[in-house]
């Protein structure tokens, strides 16, 4: 393009050279000039053709890349939207468990309830243990008293035996007294009956006491078994359950934070996809630039044709060489149009917008 831009100084030089020329240059010079012009025009045409092919190739590659990139971005936009909706759904699910609905509990409330229940259960077990030891002590006390009552019954039996012996002796003495001891004999007989009855009652009570003692011994054993009940496994289960409940509560909090983060990332991805899609408009700008280059190539082709025509004229020799060159200089001025100023992909605040 520098050839067109230097039109002012070139034209002046040609005018200065043409004016004082008294005659035409030799034939060899004219032919050499014509040959030179043809070679230049041919080289220019070849360059234009090659550049045209490269432009077409670049435009095709760019279009294909932009299409592929655009499709990928649209797919990414759909995926980001799906991801965001999934995060929102998960958020709603977690909110249900956190805030609770009718008939459901929040995780925190559930954890608190579990801890409270386990505390109550363990305390109840300890209270049972306490009362079991109290029962053991009281059973022992009853057994001591029962033994004491047994001793008293033994003494009672001894009294009955001795009373029986006394009544027997009294009967013998009454027999010795003959008719004077008849009344005394009756009394001795009654005392003996009472002694027998007292002995039988004492035997019955002793028998019942033995049975009661056996029952008490069994009850004491049972109380001891209850008191000795080791619920260490329950205590450790309580600890495990509390650890698990704490872990669940912490997981709930972490899940909430992760979902919130997922939502943020999803929104950010969608925003970036939107920006990328907007940035794809550079395709239009590049096409506009390429079209401008194509138009410029057309101008160059016309310039090459002019050069060919000029070479032909010079070769014919029908017109003075200086006149031909002046005419060519004027015609070439038309090719010196200012370069087109397109908008930039990075910013659309300045530049000439033609397509959108």
């Amino acid at each position: 393009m520098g050839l067109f831009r230097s039109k002012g100084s070139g034209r002046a030089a040609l005018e200065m050279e043409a004016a004082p020329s008294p005659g035409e240059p030799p034939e060899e010079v004219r032919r050499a000039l014509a040959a030179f012009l043809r070679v230049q025009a041919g080289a220019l045409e070849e360059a234009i053709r090659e550049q045209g092919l490269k432009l077409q190739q670049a435009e095709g590659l760019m279009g294909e890349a932009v299409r592929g990139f655009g499709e990928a971005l649209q797919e990414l936009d759909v995926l980001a939207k799906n991801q965001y909706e999934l995060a929102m759904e998960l958020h709603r699910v977690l909110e249900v468990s956190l805030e609770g609905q009718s008939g459901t509990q929040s995780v925190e409330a559930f954890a608190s309830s579990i801890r409270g229940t386990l505390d109550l259960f363990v305390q109840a077990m300890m209270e049972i243990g306490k009362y079991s030891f109290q029962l053991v002590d009281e059973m022992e006390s009853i057994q001591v008293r029962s033994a004491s009552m047994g001793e008293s019954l033994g003494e009672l039996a001894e009294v009955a035996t001795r009373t029986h012996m006394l009544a027997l002796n009294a009967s013998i003495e009454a027999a010795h007294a003959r008719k004077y001891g008849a009344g005394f004999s009756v009394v001795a007989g009654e005392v003996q009956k009472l002694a027998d009855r007292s002995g039988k009652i004492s035997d019955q009570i002793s028998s019942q006491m033995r049975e009661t003692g056996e029952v008490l011994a069994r009850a004491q054993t049972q109380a001891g078994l209850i008191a000795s009940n080791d619920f260490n496994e329950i205590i450790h289960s309580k600890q495990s359950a509390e650890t698990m409940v704490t872990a669940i509560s912490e997981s709930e909090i972490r899940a909430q934070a992760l979902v919130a983060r997922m939502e943020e990332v999803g929104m950010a991805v969608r925003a970036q996809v939107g920006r990328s899609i907007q940035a794809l408009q550079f395709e239009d700008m590049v096409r506009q630039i390429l079209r401008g280059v194509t138009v410029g190539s057309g101008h160059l082709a016309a310039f090459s044709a002019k050069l060919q025509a000029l070479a032909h004229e010079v070769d014919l020799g029908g017109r003075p060489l200086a006149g031909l060159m002046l005419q060519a200089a004027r015609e070439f001025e038309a090719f010196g149009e200012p370069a087109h100023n397109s908008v930039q992909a990075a910013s659309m605040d300045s530049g000439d917008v033609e397509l959108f």
Partner: protein
Amino acid sequence: MEFKTVVDSGCATVHLDGRLAYGVYPDFRAATLAALEHPAATRIQLDMSGVTFLDSSVLGMILYFNQKARAAHKELAIVRPSAQVAEVLKIVNFSKLVPILP
């Protein structure tokens, strides 16, 4: 297994040691009753620094003794529990029932 009871400055301290389970109850009862019935003792401490194992039945044993101590208007506390004992007492929140002192 006999447990030693020491009375000093109005405080009776029962030194429990070894593995505590249901079988130690007669000795536990004898030692704690001695502390409870000591006329100079207004406070009772169960020193559990030497306890290497604690069966959960012992918790009921201590609660029962705490009930008797309260009835006798005497304060009961567990002191210097070993690591094993402290862990069990912590799990069951025993400090809500009987004071635990380091």
